């Protein structure tokens, strides 16, 4: 039941993103992140964090977006399961590019590129 609630927030968030409403998407992903943390469900936690990052990017809030994308990496590290890391490296690099920090962007793109051939 809690898990279902979590899933439905994630779905709603994705829909808002698709319909160009990143502010509402942010709220949905925020709610799903809280539930995922309570349930100690790292996979869903990463999905929520990725959604939060994407929502902030769409609003031009690149610094905050980096925080959430980095949370994906930290969660992967913690649980020893790296799904979502390729996308997170790419997204963080995109944010640094937008902020004009091409040096940092390049470092994250290198990590992203190194993972492209894996599954």
């Amino acid at each position: 039941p809690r898990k279902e609630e979590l899933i439905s927030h994630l779905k709603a968030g994705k829909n808002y993103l698709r319909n160009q409403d990143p502010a509402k998407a942010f709220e949905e992903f925020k709610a799903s992140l809280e539930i995922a943390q309570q349930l100690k469900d790292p996979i869903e936690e990463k999905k929520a964090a990725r959604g939060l990052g994407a929502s902030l990017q769409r609003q031009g809030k690149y610094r905050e977006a980096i925080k959430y994308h980095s949370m994906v990496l930290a969660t992967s590290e913690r649980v020893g399961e790296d799904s979502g890391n390729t996308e997170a490296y790419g997204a963080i690099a995109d944010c640094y590019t937008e902020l004009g920090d091409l040096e940092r962007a390049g470092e994250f793109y290198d990590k992203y590129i190194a993972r492209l051939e894996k599954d």
Partner: protein
Amino acid sequence: LETVPTIKNLRAFVEGIRVAELEKCFSRMGDDIPAKTKKAVENLSRGIMNKVLHGPMQHLRCDGSDCRTLSETLENMHAINRMFDLET
């Protein structure tokens, strides 16, 4: 470093194609797609995208030791910008 924005633009271009085709695919598959199927299809779309991008992305970076020359990297960048119409 001049090539960094091109990496971002190329990523965004291909991601746009991926998401559009994925939604078309899900809408053709009807309602009630099993979660396992959905995940396999998402992985498929990412797999194709990542493997196709790998070569071009590598050839837009030029910092390592065994690396192509700067001029070659810039030529790659110009070609990619032209071919994918990525001028910002």
